[in-house]
C-alpha cells in the first residue's frame, strides 16, 4: 500500500497566513477565506441536519419534556435516573451488547475467511463475488422480512425444504422462545454484515505484493505461517476500518429487529435503538428516550476512544 501524502496545493495559492488579517477585498484575504467558502455548503448541511439534532437530543435529555415535546426546565438528570432504574433497561443494554459483539465478531471472522477463499483464482470467481454482494445491496427491511418468512413455523420455506429433503418429518418451531428469536436476528445481522467485511478484506488482500509469499515459500513457511505472519498483518488496516464501522452500524441497527420482532415480547429482543424508538414514538417519553440516546453515544464514544488510544499508541510501529 503506497502512502499518499496530501498533494501540495497548487503553488501560488499557498500563502502563509499572516499574523494580522489582511485587508478585506484584497486577493490575499480572499485566499485565506477561500477554503472555507468551499467547505461551507457541506458544513451548513451537516450543522442543520446532524449537529442541531444532536444538540436537541442532549437538551431534551436534561429537561422535563411534555408529551408534545415542550421543554419544562432542567430536571436534575431525572430522565437518566428513571431510565436506569427501569428493570427493562438492563435487559436492553445486555441485548445491545450481545447483539453488537456477536454480529461484529462472527461476521468479521466469516467475512475474513470468505475473503481468503474468494481471493483464490478459480472459475466462476466473478459470479461468486457478485452473489456475495447481494445482501450488502439489499435494504435491511426486505432482508429481515424474507428471513421472518423463511423461518415461520406454519408456512415457512425452511420447514418445507427440510421436509422435502427428508431431514425432518414434522414442522419444527424455529422460533419457540424470545431467545431463539434473538438468535435468528443475530444470524440475519451476520448475514448482511459478512459481505461488507469480506469486500474490505479483499481490497486489502489484493494490494499485497505476491513476492512476500514467494519469499516465504522459499524459506519453507507453511500455509498458516504465511497467513499469520504475512496476510494478517497486511490486511490489518482494512480489518480495523471494517470493524470500527461495523461496531457503529450494528450498534445503531434498527430495521432487522424492528421487522422481525419489534423488540417484543416484553423488551426481550429490544436493543437500545428499538427501545428508544418505542419510548419516544409509542409512549411519548421523549425526555427518557433522549437520555437513552445519550447513553448510546457515550458507549460508542468509549469504544471509539479505546480504538483511538490503541491506534495512536500502535501508530508509530505500524507506519
Amino acid at each position, binding site marked *: *500500500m503506497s502512502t*499518499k*501524502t496530501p*498533494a501540495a*496545493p*497548487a503553488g*501560488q*495559492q499557498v500563502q502563509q497566513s499572516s499574523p494580522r488579517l489582511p485587508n478585506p477585498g484584497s486577493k490575499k484575504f480572499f485566499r485565506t477565506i*477561500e*477554503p*472555507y467558502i*468551499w467547505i461551507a*455548503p*457541506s458544513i451548513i448541511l*451537516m450543522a*442543520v*441536519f*446532524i449537529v*442541531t*439534532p*444532536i444538540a*436537541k*437530543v442532549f437538551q*431534551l435529555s436534561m429537561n422535563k419534556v411534555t408529551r408534545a415535546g415542550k421543554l419544562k426546565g432542567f430536571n436534575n438528570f431525572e430522565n437518566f435516573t428513571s431510565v436506569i432504574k427501569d428493570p427493562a433497561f438492563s435487559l436492553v443494554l445486555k441485548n445491545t451488547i450481545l447483539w453488537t459483539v456477536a454480529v461484529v465478531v462472527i461476521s468479521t471472522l466469516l467475512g475474513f475467511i470468505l475473503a481468503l*477463499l474468494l*481471493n483464490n483464482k*478459480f472459475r466462476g470467481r466473478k459470479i461468486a463475488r457478485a*452473489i*456475495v*454482494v*447481494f445482501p450488502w*445491496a439489499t*435494504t435491511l*427491511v*426486505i432482508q429481515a422480512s*424474507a428471513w421472518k*418468512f423463511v423461518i415461520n413455523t*406454519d408456512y415457512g*420455506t425452511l420447514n*418445507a*425444504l427440510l421436509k422435502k429433503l427428508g431431514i425432518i418429518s414434522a*414442522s419444527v418451531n424455529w422460533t419457540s422462545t424470545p431467545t431463539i428469536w434473538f438468535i435468528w436476528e443475530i444470524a440475519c445481522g451476520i448475514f448482511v454484515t459478512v459481505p461488507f467485511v469480506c*469486500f*474490505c478484506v479483499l*481490497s486489502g488482500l489484493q494490494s499485497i505484493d505476491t513476492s512476500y*509469499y*514467494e519469499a516465504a*515459500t522459499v524459506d519453507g513457511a507453511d500455509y498458516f505461517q504465511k*497467513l499469520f505472519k504475512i496476510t494478517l498483518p497486511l490486511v490489518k488496516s*482494512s480489518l480495523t*476500518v471494517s470493524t470500527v464501522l461495523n461496531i*457503529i452500524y450494528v450498534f*445503531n441497527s434498527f430495521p432487522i429487529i424492528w421487522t422481525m420482532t419489534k423488540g417484543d415480547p416484553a423488551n426481550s429482543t429490544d436493543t*437500545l*435503538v428499538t427501545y*428508544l424508538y418505542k419510548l*419516544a414514538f409509542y409512549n411519548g417519553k421523549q425526555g427518557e428516550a*433522549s437520555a437513552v*440516546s445519550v447513553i*448510546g453515544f457515550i458507549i460508542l464514544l468509549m469504544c471509539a476512544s479505546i480504538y483511538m488510544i490503541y491506534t495512536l499508541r500502535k501508530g508509530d510501529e505500524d507506519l
Partner: protein
Amino acid sequence: MSQPANAIQKKPISLKKTILRLLLYFVVLDVCIITLYPYFAMLCTALKSREEIFSGNSVLPVTVLWSNFIDIWSRAPMAKYMLNSIIIAGGSTIIAMLCGIPAAYALARMKFKGQTAFLGFVIVSQMFAPVVLLIGIYQVMQVLHLTDSILGLIFINAAFNQAFTIWLLRGTFIGISADMEQAATIDGCNRIQSMMKVLLPVAAPGIVTTLIFIFINAWNEYTVALCLISTDTLKPLTVGINTFNGYNIIEWQYLFAASIFAIIPVVILFMCIEKNLVSGLASGGVKG
C-alpha cells in the same frame, strides 16, 4: 490455498491440491446457495397464491401466478412509492454531491486552519446514526416545516451521507496528481474552471462510484422515512411495501413481489460499483 505461492512452484497437480480445489468449490458454492436462498424463497413466494403459501407444503410454486406482480400496482400506490424512492434517492444524491465535491476538493487541494478538525468532525459524524437522533431530527423538521415531506428526507439523507461522500471523494482527489490543474491555472483557468475541466473528468470513476453509493443508501433508507412520513402517497418503497404487512394478516406474495421491484435496481447498480467502492473506502479511509 494461497494461490500466489502455489503458482510459482509449478509442481505437477497433486492429489492434495485437487482435494483442496474441490473443497474450495464446495464451500464457495455453499456460501452462494445460502446467500441466494432468501431471495429465492422471496421470488418463489411472490409467484404463489395466498392459499398455497399458507398451506406451507412446497418451496417452489405449484401454480405460477405472475399476476401477483401486476396486482401490487393496483393494491397499493406502488407507482407512487417507486417515484418517491427515485426522487428521494436522486435528490439526496444531487445535494450530497453538490455539498461534498467542493468540501472534498478543499480538503484535498488546499491547506487551511481547522482542516484536521473538519475531517475529524466528518468522521465522528458517522457515529451518530439517524435512528439515535430521530427525536432531535423530528423536532428540527417541525421547526423547518419539513415533517411529512420528501424534501425533508432528501436533506436528512444528504446530510448523513456527507461523511461517505467526502471520505470517498477526498481519497479519489488525493490520488490524482495536481500537476494538470496547475498547468491549467497557468493557462489562465481559475480554480473552478480547473476543477470542472481538469480534475472532475479524471476523477469520474470515483465520482460515479460515490454517486451510486449514496443513491443506494438513500434508496434503502427506512428508519427516518418510517418516522417522518405519515401520508401514504409520500412514502418511499421501503416503507410503502409494509402496506402488505398488515396488523392482522401479512400478504406475503404481494410483499415479496413489491420487494423484488425494490431490490433489483440497487443490486444491479451495486454490482457496477462494487470493485471501485471497496478500493475507494480503503484509500479514503486508511490513509492521510
